[in-house]
């Protein structure tokens, strides 16, 4: 009898042996771990993300390390060239304490670049966040509530057919004075530029989010949530929003790039911040009249804008690949 039972146990072992894992079980992997592994494969995105981090730290920490006041005039040391011009021109006026030279009023270019970067990045981030908030809200409401869908999407279409750059120019030129009077020259301009860029760039996000929500809404887990009596707001917060994070992140990177370029373009066309408040676009456009004598004053801010936007675009590319589960793992 015991013999039989041992035999039975042995055959049972043989039967289930095939189903047993050949190797020790692996640690369970979280979604973000997978995302990071896929992201690492995209070299451009990795470099882009690294550069964006570097430039953000550069403008955030820069003023504490490079303690020259960007607004301080130093007429004696005006029009200094960057020290690297010594490589081909031994007679150039340079000063080792001014590595990137000074402008026509003797302001240190390194310090103005840091201050300008602060303004440009702040405008870029704020405008991006604003447009994301509006876009996500419109997208979620249009996708979730059927009654709002028609009117919100018509509104999105209308905004998409507005001529954006001309309207931005109009809004900034015409509302410059009252906002400056109300909130001070720099604060007023900041709010105005962030506001107009945010208000005119939320449409792509809204469309993408709406599409995702429409598909998610029909899934079983939403039905389950509703059947146990979850309120609409809780469904949106707990179940829908976490599932649309990836498209929102991708459109966030695109939004950041667009916002930085738009701010620079406005400054370049002469409707941006006041003249003593440096941004990268403003530094570039101020330097254009004398670009033949001092090309570095055009090149440095221009290169910074371009590199930042380039790195953000690469970051977006990498994020799109990493966050898409169909591409991930291939």
């Amino acid at each position, binding site marked *: 009898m015991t013999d039989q039972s041992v035999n039975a146990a042995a055959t049972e072992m043989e039967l289930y042996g095939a189903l047993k894992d050949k190797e020790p079980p692996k640690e369970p992997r979280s979604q973000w771990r997978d995302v990071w592994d896929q992201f690492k494969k995209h070299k451009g995105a990795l470099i882009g993300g690294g550069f964006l981090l570097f430039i953000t730290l550069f403008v955030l920490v820069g003023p504490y390390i490079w303690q020259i006041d960007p607004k301080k005039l130093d007429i004696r040391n005006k029009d200094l060239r960057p020290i690297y011009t010594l490589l081909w021109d031994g007679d150039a006026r340079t000063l080792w304490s001014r590595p990137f030279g000074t402008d026509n009023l003797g302001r240190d270019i390194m310090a103005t670049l840091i201050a300008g970067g602060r303004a440009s990045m702040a405008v870029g981030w704020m405008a991006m966040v604003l447009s994301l908030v509006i876009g996500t809200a419109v997208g979620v409401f249009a996708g979730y509530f059927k009654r709002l869908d028609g009117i919100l999407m018509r509104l999105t279409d209308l905004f998409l*057919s507005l001529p954006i750059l001309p309207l931005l120019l*109009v*809004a900034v030129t015409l509302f410059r004075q009252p906002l400056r009077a109300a909130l001070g020259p720099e604060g007023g301009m900041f709010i105005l530029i962030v506001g107009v860029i945010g208000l005119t760039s939320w449409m792509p996000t809204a469309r993408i989010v709406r599409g995702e929500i429409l598909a998610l809404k029909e899934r079983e887990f939403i039905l389950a949530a509703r059947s146990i009596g979850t309120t609409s707001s809780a469904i949106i917060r707990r179940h829908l929003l976490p599932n649309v994070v990836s498209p929102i992140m991708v459109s966030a990177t695109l939004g950041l790039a667009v916002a930085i370029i738009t701010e620079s373009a406005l400054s*370049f*066309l002469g409707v941006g911040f006041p003249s003593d408040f440096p941004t990268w676009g403003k530094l570039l456009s101020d330097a254009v009249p004398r670009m033949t004598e001092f090309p570095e004053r055009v090149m440095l801010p*221009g290169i910074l804008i371009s590199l930042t936007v380039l790195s953000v675009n690469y970051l977006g590319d990498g994020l799109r690949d990493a966050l898409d589960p169909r591409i991930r793992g291939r």
Partner: protein
Amino acid sequence: MLTFTIRRLVLSIPTLLFISLVIFMLLQLAPGDPMAQVPLTVPPEVKQKMREALGLGAPVHVQYWKWLVQFFWIEPQVLIDHWFGTALSEGKLRVISWQTRSPVMDIVMQRMPQTLWVVGMSYVVGILIALPIGIYSAYRQYSVFDQVGTFVSMIGFSVPPFFSGVVVIVLFSVQLGWFPSIYDTTHVVTDWDSFVIQFKQMIMPVMVLALQTTAQISRFMRASMLDNLNQDYVRTARAKGLRESAVVLVHVLRNSMIPVITVIALGIPGIFGGAIITETLFKVNGIGQLLLTALFANDLPMVMTLTFIFAILIVLFNLIADVLYGVLDPRIRYD
């Protein structure tokens, strides 16, 4: 298809009306007095009369209605008069610029050729460069050409035109002296030499604008080709023994062009907006530059009309893109 086109055309009228209302209200809210430039010696009551003569005394809805009538009813009549020599618009009030006191549309018509010439040329050049790059980099995916092409298009995507424009001016007109940095719109092409001058002055603004177009379109072309290259019909075409060139350039290309053509149509209004910067940079006196000067001079009728023209372009090309999509792709049916 025809019913769809007609329905879209009819639907675009309220859209345009709404956009014109938005622009009009934005300009109404704006502070700024057209009498700001008038000498201080002019007494206030005379100024008030001048303001009323400009139509500023009337209530907002009357002003808006008058602008609508002038733009949609009287200006087309002027156009018909111009073409057929009739006298429909005789004695009727047109949209008048506060800056020059002449009809806005006349100035726009003077400036339009320069913009169309530079912008149109750059778009055509950009597309002609972009299509072969997109096709070849998709066909040889992950090759050196593809890597370089993707990188260059990413740069073209990221470098703003006001920087690339400045760089080419420094490089080619200051350092090398090959091309003039200012676009001379009074230049007339009569013979070979003047054509060379025209060619030289056009090359920089056209290439700066074309860089952006190329970057966008080649990315789309590559993605669209990649989608189609793995389809079953491609394998069938190869199995039939078709030449590789026929497979790629006839079968795959024709199918991949469908989304690309709509992107090309959708990009046309955008390039007019981008031309504002390029025109400022190269001193082309087109409509972008006209809008900018009108804004700084507080010339509201001019700003209103120009912005609205941009809006018409966007709505029109959205419509064209939608209709083209249906015409080109028989799988898509709107009705």
